[in-house]
């Protein structure tokens, strides 16, 4: 690119570069209207007591003060974490195990393409359908799961109240989410392994490194950026959890508010309560955003420093 150019060519390049403005114009207009403006508008609304209609009276930082004092907001954060942590352990753990199995040089497991497709299947289906499917399967009286457990003699007496018990329901949602997402994580980790230069493995085997040494010294460190990527995206996704708990436990996060996530709490004030408390919901949105930001930065720092 840094070749010498005549004056004429430079002039021509400038004209050429002007067409770039034309090319980015649609993006910039729509971006400003539908991405930038709503985010700033939400910020503005968060400093008012707007109800979704009528005036927007300035309310200072009172909405933010309210978020920090609101016990139920922090419970919704705790619920989100309670659902997310078992989910991520199961999801990444399973994906990681599968990656080890399929990249093993000794056993050379076949059929990666087929297994991968089947493991990914639950991820492609809408969470709405998945939520209703499991709600029906797990119904404590008529659900096929409990009826199967009874027929097989595993559960005698009272059937398990999967979705009605505040101690069990959040965990059930974790497991379903993990079931839905492990295939996705597996594909990403596997892509990482396949992206590793084969020379590393050959060099290691010439040096007489065993399978576990190779795995610990070569595969693991080279997979780290992808692990970071998967865990951060999964965490950000986890904090935004909405569809599944919302459909299974309604906006109140039944049973007993145990599955009410942060976004459900935002939705409640922004769209469900009458009258709406849009100003408060906007403040909740910004608090959630800052929580996500802090956690992402910390996660970056922690995982980036291990080298």
């Amino acid at each position, binding site marked *: 690119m840094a070749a010498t150019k005549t004056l004429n060519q430079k002039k021509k390049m400038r004209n*050429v*570069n*002007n*067409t*770039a403005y034309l*090319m*980015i114009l*649609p*993006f910039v207009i*729509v*971006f400003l*209207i*539908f991405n930038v*403006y*709503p*985010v700033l*508008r*939400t*910020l*503005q*609304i968060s400093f008012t007591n707007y109800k979704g209609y009528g005036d927007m009276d300035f309310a200072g930082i009172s909405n933010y003060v309210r978020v920090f004092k609101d016990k139920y907001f922090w419970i919704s954060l705790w619920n989100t974490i309670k659902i997310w942590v078992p989910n991520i352990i199961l999801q990444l753990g399973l994906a990681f195990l*599968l990656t080890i*199995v399929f990249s093993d040089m000794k*056993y050379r497991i076949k059929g990666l393409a087929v297994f*991968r*497709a*089947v*493991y*990914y299947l*639950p991820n*492609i*289906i*809408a969470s*709405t*359908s998945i939520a*209703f*499917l499991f709600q*029906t*399967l797990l119904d404590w009286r*008529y659900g*096929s799961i409990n*009826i199967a457990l009874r*027929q097989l003699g595993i559960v005698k007496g009272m059937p398990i109240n999967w979705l009605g018990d505040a101690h069990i329901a959040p965990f059930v949602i974790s497991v379903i989410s993990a079931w839905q997402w492990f*295939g996705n994580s597996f*594909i990403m980790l*596997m*892509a*990482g392994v*396949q992206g590793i230069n084969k020379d590393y493995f050959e060099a290691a085997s010439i040096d007489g490194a065993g399978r576990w040494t190779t795995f610990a010294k070569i595969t693991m460190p080279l997979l780290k950026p*992808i692990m970071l*990527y998967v865990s951060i995206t999964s965490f950000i996704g986890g904090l*935004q959890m*909405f569809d599944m708990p919302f459909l299974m436990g309604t906006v109140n996060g039944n049973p007993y508010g145990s599955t009410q996530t942060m976004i459900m709490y*935002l939705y409640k004030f*922004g769209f469900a309560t009458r009258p709406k408390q*849009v100003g408060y919901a906007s403040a909740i*949105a*910004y608090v*959630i*955003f800052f929580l996500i930001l802090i956690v992402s930065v910390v996660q970056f720092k922690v995982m980036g420093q291990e080298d």
Partner: protein
Amino acid sequence: MGIGYKVKKTILYICLIILAITCMLPFILMLVNATRSGAEIAKSFTFIPGSHLKENWDIVFSYFNLFRGFWNSLKVAIPTTILNAYFSSLTAYALAVYKFKGQKVLFYTQVIFMMIPGQLGLIGFYNLVSALKLLDSYIPLIIPAIAAPGTVFFLRQYILSVLPMSLLEAGRIDGARELHMFHKIVMPIMLPGIATMAIGGFIGNWNAYLVPLVLLNSKDKFTLPVMISSLSASTDIAANNGAKYLAIAISIIPICIAFCFLSKYIISSISAGSVKE
């Protein structure tokens, strides 16, 4: 490579197969139960299909026309995917190939917005759409696809890695105009990258729930996920689990069929997304 090796290998395969069955079992149960009556489902558990498919079908379709939900979802997802693919590649191309004032600002703003969770602007978005009198319309679901920071970012990286700049120089010497060059030379080269993004985008869109839920309120405009979520409002369907399973099955089957044909591309799109980081 003795007997121990073979045994261990067999055990590994069995575990992998069990996991695969776990992934499919809920869907198999769904299909079986969709053909049984609510009473049968409540009484026993089986993998043998029943004979109540027709009744369940009638109950579902007397409440809502699921095919209308399909059609609505298509009406949103197809234009969204096309706009997203075309304008994202155009913007990505401009960012990758040209030098212009404000380029860095645009690039970094876009990267920042990639990290911002969608719900942050949800309230402001709803407020804007309502002020524009576009509630209960597909326009606010479709038009924002023109500006998709994540897709632009991915495609920009893609262009930088696959497009030889000398090709553009050659085109310019031949007197080709810039937009013409983009359409005739660049887009064909970018096609695999664009397809990757388009498939992922289509699925995301097809399954989207929160935004359509918030924006749409007339029943005949509901997209499939919103329609499915209104399922429990019907007492007839709620009273008969067979009908419920059937409704869910109808919502799932088309995407499963599409997956059978496209799984290779879908999976490569996820792989690409992770390696490009």
